């Protein structure tokens, strides 16, 4: 048996009402709301979140592959999957690879992972897809896009859904694109994109795989069709003979938006949340061609962990008060520069990555005291180099004390400075709190750790951990 062992999703905390965007421009709202990555989030950090949710109950040592898919990778040159792997704390003997450029990158990575496991070149491959795309200000995409991530672990034991077949078509068409010099997504006329691009490729891939598998529309419990907008998805499903009510998976466009390369996997996660044993599902993505995959849910789905389901992620949210806030989060409006700029050093980040990226502390072998950052000489008993590393990233904690700092500045002012006492040996971690209402912070409040982007310094992005309220 080969297929999905586990899965996880991530939708950022903030939503922006599309009416708020429309109001800023005096235009028409397409209705509903979209997810907005916080100012300290990007495709890498959201991929880390989804991956964490995916491998929460899995032995990390058993994961020997990580594929990252995105059209909005923060780096054009420098692997991101290696960074995600460190933050998720996967072993270093691992195949890492980045899949980019296409909205099909998520399903392409899934196919590649499937092939790797099938050919026995890897045992368990984590596929994570994440996107944070920018529509031009005042464009419809600005409203219809959303930010989010999903992760799927493929393997050959404890499988909750097998992958039965995969089928792809490629189609050269410049319908939606972003060159190496663009910030925003360009699109040719929408009618043409949807009818000649999306609908045709999707139909070919889906018909192709169903024919090869000898499946009739009624043989599928769920069809998970990526969709840039609702009507063309429903038209497509109708033409293919699916029942819109009982078979068609919600495209998550009203409450999240189109999360790009992550979207097919995010919809798959939502479908798996509700799936029962024996159900057959079809997943199809689009991006200059289409990938179609047939899955079969197993008895193993009953063991599925109830960690945040997509609907939980949708329910845990805070509305952004203004369109300007969104612009500031994406650095689309220039803000006053920080007067105090601390330098960075690639060497320092590299040398300290065991605690700075993996969020490991040190546990003294003599007196058991746990410290963060890793201490070579124990604070408690002065034992030298006699410790083991312990993971703090997946441990809950409590706010020991905090302050709300208006002097530090930044897009989330006041910045919430916290001393967290970790459930791991009461280690103390000084960090910022994110995704929070400063007025709601209290001593004793339970928090969890979250991987975030800090700032650009010396020309590269600096990542570290913050805490947030447990949602």
């Amino acid at each position: 048996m080969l297929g999905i062992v586990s899965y996880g999703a991530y939708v950022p905390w903030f939503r922006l009402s599309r009416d708020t965007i429309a109001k800023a421009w005096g235009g028409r709202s397409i209705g509903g709301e979209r997810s907005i990555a916080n100012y300290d989030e990007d495709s890498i950090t959201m991929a880390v979140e989804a991956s964490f949710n995916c491998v929460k109950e899995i032995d990390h040592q058993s994961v020997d592959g990580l594929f990252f898919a995105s059209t909005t990778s923060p780096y054009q040159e420098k692997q991101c999957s290696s960074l995600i792997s460190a933050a998720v704390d996967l072993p270093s003997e691992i195949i890492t690879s980045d899949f980019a450029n296409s909205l099909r990158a998520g399903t392409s990575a899934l196919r590649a992972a499937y092939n790797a496991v099938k050919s026995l070149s890897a045992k368990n491959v984590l596929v994570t897809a994440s996107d944070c795309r920018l529509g031009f200000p005042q464009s419809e995409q600005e409203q219809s896009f959303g930010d989010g991530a999903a992760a799927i672990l493929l393997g050959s034991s404890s499988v909750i859904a097998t992958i039965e077949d995969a089928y792809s078509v490629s189609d050269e068409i410049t319908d939606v694109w972003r060159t190496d010099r663009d910030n925003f997504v360009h699109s040719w006329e929408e009618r043409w994109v949807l009818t000649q691009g999306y609908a045709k490729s999707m139909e070919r891939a889906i018909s192709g795989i169903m024919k090869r598998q000898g499946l009739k529309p009624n043989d599928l419990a769920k069809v998970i069709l990526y969709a840039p907008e609702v009507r063309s998805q429903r038209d497509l499903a109708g033409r293919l003979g699916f029942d819109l009510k009982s078979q068609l998976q919600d495209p998550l466009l009203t409450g999240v938006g189109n999360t790009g390369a992550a979207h097919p996997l995010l919809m798959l996660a939502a479908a798996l949340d509700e799936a029962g044993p024996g159900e057959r599902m079809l997943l199809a993505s689009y991006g200059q061609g289409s990938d179609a995959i047939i899955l079969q849910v197993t008895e193993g789905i009953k063991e599925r962990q109830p960690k945040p389901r997509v609907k939980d992620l949708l329910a845990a949210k805070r509305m952004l008060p203004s369109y300007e806030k969104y612009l500031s989060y994406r650095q689309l409006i220039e803000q006053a520069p920080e007067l105090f700029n601390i330098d960075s050093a690639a060497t320092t980040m590299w040398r300290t990555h065991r605690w700075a990226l993996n969020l490991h502390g040190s546990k003294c072998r003599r007196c058991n005291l746990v410290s963060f950052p890793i201490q070579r000489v124990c604070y408690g008993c002065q034992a030298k180099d006699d410790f083991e590393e312990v993971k703090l990233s997946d441990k809950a904690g409590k706010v020991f004390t905090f302050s709300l700092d208006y002097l530090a500045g930044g897009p989330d002012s006041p910045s919430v400075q916290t001393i967290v006492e970790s459930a791991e040996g009461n280690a103390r971690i000084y960090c910022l709190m994110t995704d929070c209402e400063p007025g709601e912070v209290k001593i004793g409040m339970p928090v969890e750790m979250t991987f975030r982007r800090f700032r650009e310094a010396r020309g590269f992005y600096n990542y570290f951990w913050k805490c947030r309220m447990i949602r």
Partner: protein
Amino acid sequence: MEGIKDKVAIIGMGCTKFGENWDKGAEDMLIEAAYEAYEDAGIGPNDIEAAWYGTDHTVGYLNPGGSLVANALKLRNIPITRVENACASGHEALRNATFAVACGMYDIALAIGVEKLKDTGFGGLGTGRGEHPVLEIRRTAPGTFALLATRYFYVYGLSPEQGKMILAKIAVKNHHNGSLHPKAHLRREITEDMALAAPIIAWPLGLFDCCGNSDGGAAAIITRADLAKKFRDNPIYIKGIGLSMDQMLPLFRPGFDWLGFEANRVASRQAFDQAGITQPRKDIDLAEVHDCFTITELLIYEDLGFSPKGRAREDVEAGTFTLEGELPINTDGGLKSFGHPIGASALRMTYEVYKQLQGKAELPSRQLKNPKIGLSHTLGGPPQVACVAIFGNSIG
């Protein structure tokens, strides 16, 4: 360990006006502080045999060492050492000079400190501490000390309103004291209502809970105690100096209670032991302490043994530490009102103790009655280091 009691005396001191000294560079302030001290001691620059110079981050170029003092004062090829120990840098200058004189290496030494904060272009005490590219990147001084206030209020069951009222009383006291000192930065009296209504800098601390961000310089000339009377009739003797560096940053230290600092307790005990002080509240006549924030002063009352643990509030409410109180604290306005040019602060505090013990406070309204023993205290770093020095106006 023998201690430093009555081995070294201060024979001259100088202190610039603290404040927004836009028209003065660090060198100007070094000159003003040093020349006031020369004049006070009745000596000239060529009498100085060695100098220790405390500054935190004045002059940005690489490895400035002691050159700024040499360039400003034209001291003739003598040893000049720059010392830095965060907010205790001025104390470090005095402490190292004291040990050098006590061991007989030099007869006359200069301890000098300066900070030129108003060239940083930033109106508060720093964001980010530079320990690591990401570890403390948006940490500020008020944000850090506010962590203490939040915890203190929580542990002792004070509502934010009650807690902030206690802190307001400390701010009002220090502003009053500062208003009487011609060299203080902030010379405006404030009321409790003003303090409570002030904009928040780092909750729960408001504007009046934070010290001035100031320029300034201060200097001391020291000699061996047995030589002191050759220079003046009323030298001030050093009775004890303690310094403690907490062994791990409080931000990450397991079990740190955020109600005070071990460094304060250890440094003061070292100094008290040397000076023979057994009852700090009784034995000390005035104390200049490191009130970078009002909450810091409140915790120092407890750390230095002036108030029982958790009960400093009662002493604040009773007016124990006012100019007329049982133990006047920060009689010149403290960091709060006199200002906090980092490397100069310890020597500015010492200047106030020195003048009070000589009966030479500028105005009769702020001169204490017959003080004999005074103390200066700094707390610095992230915060991690404390220094306590004790002074007296007679031997024994």
